[in-house]
């Protein structure tokens, strides 16, 4: 008879190995399958070692969940991936919260201090993950405004909600008689806290929030693993927790922001006060004269054609605008045409372009852009100098040269794609309003920039006609 702990260890090793395989696009599919198989193994091992294989309700629950999961996964479009990930995070967190809650409800009087403590914390973290993810999902899918909602005394609410939660955890840990009622209160309170903390986060900061919620959903699982004394759950939960934490760090670094800054919605607030109003005034004249057409300081349609014809080295910079306009297929058409004409085309991907880590890569992969053509920030930046033409599609802050020079603005010091070093830049954007960070983009007034305003699909069609 094999030891169940040893088997569990093997399964965890398999899951970690699966993640390891995901570090190369060539083996990533196998890595994911390995993870799935090990997960199935872990479920079976848990059922067998706890001698609960024959309980029907467990199988009914798993069947229903699998069917729903399958339907969701088949139906979802690539463009909806950010909200899908956020939703799934929330479900995992919610499940962990319920598991911890059940430990408290069914174990009254029988479980020790350690179980009571971990169950209370697991309940709290899980519930925050659930409600936070649901708000994030609503924001990402456009069911809620993506602008940060800041209440009066928001931080005060946050503080007292947290303080009360800590108090409840202490009381539950102490094992007072009213544990059941207190745990209900803790659940409601932490659900409320999840809402409080996500409504304050703005759209472009979503990559950070999703990563953080991902981390929290793993952590919630690990903590409920403590409560229910399941080593497998502890191990896998912490791997997920660590993964989300790394992504959160990467995202914060890519925006030159602290996590605290993002969570308190600071940048967006400063933006409204600082850059917003002046920028709008400056560009309003330009906007009127150019609505819906080809705009630019001194570029006409004619010399845009010349620029396109003469360019040999082209770099495409996609941003959230490409996702929003679902313009990735058109982008591929333009790139194909450019390549047919013997031009070299590369893609520059900023780490925080879009609404989740790697958002652009997935959309481009969907339309068959080879991943060898996608370059990360550090790899591509030295190349802009020798580039004839950069095409920016719906990106703003990540190419804003003000990040290098405008001290005191929210994006100062943020690593950007140095598109201003190229010979010419075509910028496709809805309008000339400053990006999410609210800092005016000097590139728009540069003589080497051509602005194409309006929907990215239409702008790309114009380019296609010129080629």
């Amino acid at each position, binding site marked *: 008879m094999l030891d169940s702990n040893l088997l569990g260890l093997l399964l965890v090793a398999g899951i*970690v190995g699966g993640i390891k395989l*995901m*570090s190369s*696009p*060539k083996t*990533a599919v196998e890595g*994911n*399958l390995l*993870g*799935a198989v090990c997960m199935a193994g872990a*479920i079976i091992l848990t059922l067998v070692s*706890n001698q*609960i294989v024959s309980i029907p309700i467990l199988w009914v*629950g*798993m069947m229903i*969940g*699998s069917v*729903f*999961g*399958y339907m969701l*996964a088949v139906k979802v479009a*690539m463009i909806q*991936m950010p909200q899908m990930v956020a939703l*799934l*995070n929330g*479900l*995992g967190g919610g*499940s*962990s919260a*319920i*598991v911890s809650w*059940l430990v408290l*409800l069914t174990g009254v009087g029988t479980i020790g201090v350690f179980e009571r403590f971990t169950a209370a914390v697991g309940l709290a973290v899980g519930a925050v993950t659930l409600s936070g993810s649901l708000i994030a999902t609503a924001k990402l899918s456009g069911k809620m405004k993506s602008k940060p909602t800041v209440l009066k005394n928001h931080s005060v609410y946050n503080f007292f909600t947290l303080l009360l939660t800590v108090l409840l955890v202490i009381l539950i840990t102490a094992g007072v008689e009213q544990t059941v009622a207190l745990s209900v209160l803790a659940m409601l309170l932490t659900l409320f806290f999840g809402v409080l903390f996500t409504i304050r986060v703005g759209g472009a900061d979503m990559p950070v929030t999703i990563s953080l919620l*991902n981390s929290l*959903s*793993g952590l919630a*699982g690990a903590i*409920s*693993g*403590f409560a229910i*004394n399941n*080593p*497998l*759950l*502890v191990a*896998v*939960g912490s*791997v*997920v927790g*660590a*993964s989300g934490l790394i*992504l959160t760090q990467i995202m914060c670094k890519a925006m030159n922001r602290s996590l605290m800054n993002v969570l308190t919605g600071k940048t967006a607030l400063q933006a409204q006060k600082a850059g917003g109003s002046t920028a709008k005034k400056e560009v309003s004249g330009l906007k009127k004269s150019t609505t819906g057409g080809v705009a630019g300081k001194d570029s006409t349609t004619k010399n845009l054609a010349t620029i396109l014809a003469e360019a040999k080295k082209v770099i495409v910079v996609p941003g959230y605008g490409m996702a929003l306009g679902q313009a990735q297929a058109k982008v591929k058409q333009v790139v194909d045409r450019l390549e047919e004409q013997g031009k070299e085309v590369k893609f520059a*991907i900023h780490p925080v372009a879009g609404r*989740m*880590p790697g958002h652009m890569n*997935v959309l481009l*992969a969907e339309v*068959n852009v080879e*991943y060898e053509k996608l370059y*990360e920030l550090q790899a591509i930046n030295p190349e802009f100098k020798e580039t004839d033409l950069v095409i920016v599609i719906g990106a703003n802050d990540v190419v804003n040269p003000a990040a290098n020079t405008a001290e005191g603005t929210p994006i100062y010091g943020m690593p950007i794609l140095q598109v201003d070093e190229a010979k010419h830049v075509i910028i496709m954007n809805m309008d000339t309003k400053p990006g999410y960070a609210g800092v005016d983009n000097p590139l728009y007034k540069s003589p080497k920039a051509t602005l194409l305003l309006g929907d990215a699909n239409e702008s790309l069609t114009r380019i296609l006609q010129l080629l």
Partner: protein
Amino acid sequence: MSILALFLLFILATVVGYKVISDVPSLLHTPLMSGTNALSGVTVLGAVVATAMAKETASQLLGAIAIILAMVNVVGGFMVTHRMLKMFKKKS
């Protein structure tokens, strides 16, 4: 397992996870995230045990909900990751 052993496991798994995931290129961050996201449904392990332990009908129903939520997370997560990763692979 003893509390101490669980804690050691927690720390070890965090370190190993951190190390392994640092190696994943940003190109694959979305699939990585949805993959580890599927893994966070591992809480289904806790859910089945907790449900089996539950004696009252209300607790059992609550447990069943936890199982359903976790399984949507697991199955949906892995399948959607598979869809994404296949797109990356077909070009190589």
